[in-house]
């Protein structure tokens, strides 16, 4: 049963001998006329095809987005057609020096095997797979196609579109706070930390104003990733978690910023000498310093559990006894027997971050927490009461 799709299209003459046809079609129809040419070795050892397998997790993310409210996929899928596909210009329509509208006819058979299809998907297989799987009626996509009977031309285009450099993560993070659509999970999770980072970096009166290095603030001293990890830890297991629990409402960003301002103001105050230097000169401004201090913020907040969060003065009171046991800019950390570490040999690795954090916690417990008289045995905290009864 031979069919034909006839679609309005625009022919674009791009360079000598290279002509493109661009058109729109329901993404669910594309597999009817375009196959995916998977890479493999034939029995004689020769290579055939070029596409990798579908990446299910990636497809799932796109599919989630497609099933959200009014999704949009503006970038075109690229298809290579063989010469069975024909373009007929519309003599009555307006064209330009290099472009003219017309009708593209694509022959196809219902349930044809892959080798009978006139087209191959060069770019966009994950998007098309997501459209195929998504529980939606239809989803028109833009397709840019070229006609060639030569497989090597397809392979070349495939390599060209897939050898671009991915965006730097830092730029993506910096763009996050300005978005609200459903994004891939990994980015979605970082949206709130990215927003807090932005505010701490920009807000008038923030102790970290202008100090965090981002794409648009390359002179910042502290790496954005250190701040993001510090925030993520606290949002999950520390003081910031308390303010993410408004009954299914949005998290209380302003309260979070108040805590962060209070704590980092205290750090700036207590560790004046190590503050504001580049990480090369001060380990306080470095990943290990920022993350371990963040965990200390959470510990101090738990010592003052009876209030919503400690004031800058209270944070400073609790940090002060630690000043003499820290070696941010000079000397040796005393991490225990046989564990002498020169100040600048503390690296930004999970092992060193853990070592430094454990040390600071032990010091804090012995110099402050245990000395404080009668910290009441913590009653059930508010956050536990707020935990929904899910049984």
């Amino acid at each position: 049963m031979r069919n034909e799709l006839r679609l309005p299209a625009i022919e674009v003459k791009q360079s000598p001998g290279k002509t493109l046809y661009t058109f729109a079609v329901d993404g669910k129809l594309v597999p009817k006329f375009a196959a995916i040419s998977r890479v493999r070795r034939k029995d004689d050892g020769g290579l055939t095809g070029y596409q990798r397998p579908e990446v299910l997790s990636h497809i799932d993310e796109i599919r989630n987005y497609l099933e959200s409210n009014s999704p949009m996929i503006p970038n075109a899928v690229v298809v290579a057609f063989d010469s069975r596909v024909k373009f007929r210009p519309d003599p009555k329509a307006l064209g330009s020096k290099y472009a003219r509208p017309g009708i593209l006819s694509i022959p196809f058979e219902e349930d044809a095997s892959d080798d009978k299809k006139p087209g191959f998907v060069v770019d966009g297989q994950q998007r098309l797979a997501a459209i195929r799987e998504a529980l939606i009626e239809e989803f028109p996509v833009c397709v840019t196609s070229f006609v060639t009977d030569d497989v090597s031309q397809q392979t070349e285009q495939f390599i060209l579109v897939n050898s671009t450099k991915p965006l730097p993560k830092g730029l993506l993070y910096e763009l996050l706070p300005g978005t609200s659509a459903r994004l891939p999970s990994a980015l979605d999770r970082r949206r709130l930390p990215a927003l807090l980072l932005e505010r701490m970096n920009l807000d008038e009166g923030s102790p970290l104003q202008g100090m965090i290095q981002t794409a648009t603030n390359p002179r910042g001293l502290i790496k954005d990733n250190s701040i993001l990890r510090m925030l993520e830890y606290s949002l999950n297991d520390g003081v910031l978690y308390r303010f993410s629990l408004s009954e299914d409402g949005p998290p209380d960003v302003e309260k979070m910023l108040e805590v962060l301002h209070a704590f980092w103001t205290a750090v700036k105050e207590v560790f004046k000498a190590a503050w504001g230097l580049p990480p090369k000169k001060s380990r306080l401004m470095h990943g290990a310093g920022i993350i371990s201090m963040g965990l200390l913020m959470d510990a101090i907040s738990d010592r003052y559990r009876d209030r919503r969060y400690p004031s800058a003065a209270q944070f400073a009171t609790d940090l002060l006894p630690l000043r003499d046991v820290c070696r941010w800019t000079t000397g040796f950390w005393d991490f225990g027997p046989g564990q002498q570490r020169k100040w600048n040999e503390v690296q930004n690795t999970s092992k060193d971050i853990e070592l430094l954090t454990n040390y600071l916690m032990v010091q804090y417990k012995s110099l402050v927490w245990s000395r404080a008289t009668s910290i009441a045995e913590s009653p059930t905290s508010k956050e536990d009461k707020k935990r929904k009864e899910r049984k």
Partner: protein
Amino acid sequence: MKFFFPDSQDLIDPSFDFARERRSTTRKRQRDDLYAHEVFASTPFDGFLVSKGIVDGYGALGSRYTLAQRHRLLRLGAPEFFRIDQASRKLSIMGDCGAFTYVKEDEPPYSVEEVLDFYGNCRFDYGLSLDHVILLYKPEADARDASRDLVPEAMRARRELTLRLAKEFLQKHKSGRYSFEPMGVAQGWSPMSYASSVKDLQKMGYRSVALGGMVPLKTPELLSCLQAIHDVAKPGLQLHLLGITRTEHLKEFARLGITSFDSTSPLRQAFKDDKDNYYTPGKNYTALRVPQVEGNPALQRKISSGEVSQDVARKLEKACLEVMRLFDAGQRTVEEALSVLMEYERFYDPGSKKMHEAAYRETLTDAPWRKCPCDVCRELRYHVVLFRGAERNRRRGFHNVWTFHRQLEKQLGLRQGSAA
């Protein structure tokens, strides 16, 4: 006899949607997840066993906790971290060092002070002394004329070290005014050496003793050790059996004076065992394997190299899920479901010698999940016997723990003081 459930942060995500295999985007690990005692209306154990090795991670064995989680545990203590107020009975928490994690080292990697500090911070109810496992069983060394060479000096030294550490542990527990109940650990290589360790610990003043290193022992060996210990135990001595895999002899353990034990078997068998994956009071069933195409490395390699078709793989995988849905709705027969499951199995594991067909037929024919009254099976239905991702497998593990605990109560008679 009390049953302690060893923790390795086994939680389930209640937001997980089994039809679409997705979780909520806002889910926070551990915070929004549920422990077994938060899943069941009646809590299927008497307490947790928390190991320093699991919390800190040791060597190649990474921690099951993030850095921030670990410090939250140390700040607030285990009762709050584990949310034990959500349990239907009063749970106790026992701490140990996880000696099997450092069994290859010459010496334990911790100091007694460190261990006491860890137990204190975690607010455990019981804490085990620092010990070193002896991987050797030589009952012939107990004979009167046995040569000393039967047991290498290094092994004898481990027993001495464990006793020395127990002594130091008890002294520092007292001087540090810790409030948890100290438990001495006994190690040995034979009935006599174990019994002698227990005697020494009693002399030091321990009222509770944990028996370590018995995991690899065969049942008769284990029983002869327990008999020897039983003969020297003072009345009222609390005896904890560490890490028991064979749970069918609990009655005998109780007779020999064991007052508590811990076991990961019910949970682990759900996704580690070749055939005993789903417990029922009568017998154990094999779970139906429907591996995720992306979660199966061997299959992924074949797909990446173009040897097999990804489309075919996914069609077969989907067909298995679909046929199970229809089977549970009564629209497919056992044989129809079985042929779909076997077709996928032949595809992803062509050379398989596992011969699952008969086992699967039994699981499908008996459909044990339909008869199980536990909260997991009520909610999950047939998904509970699908051997697939962590969310299903762990729930099946929870069901096993619940079933096991019920058997335990039946065997030993309902105990006093178990809260409603």
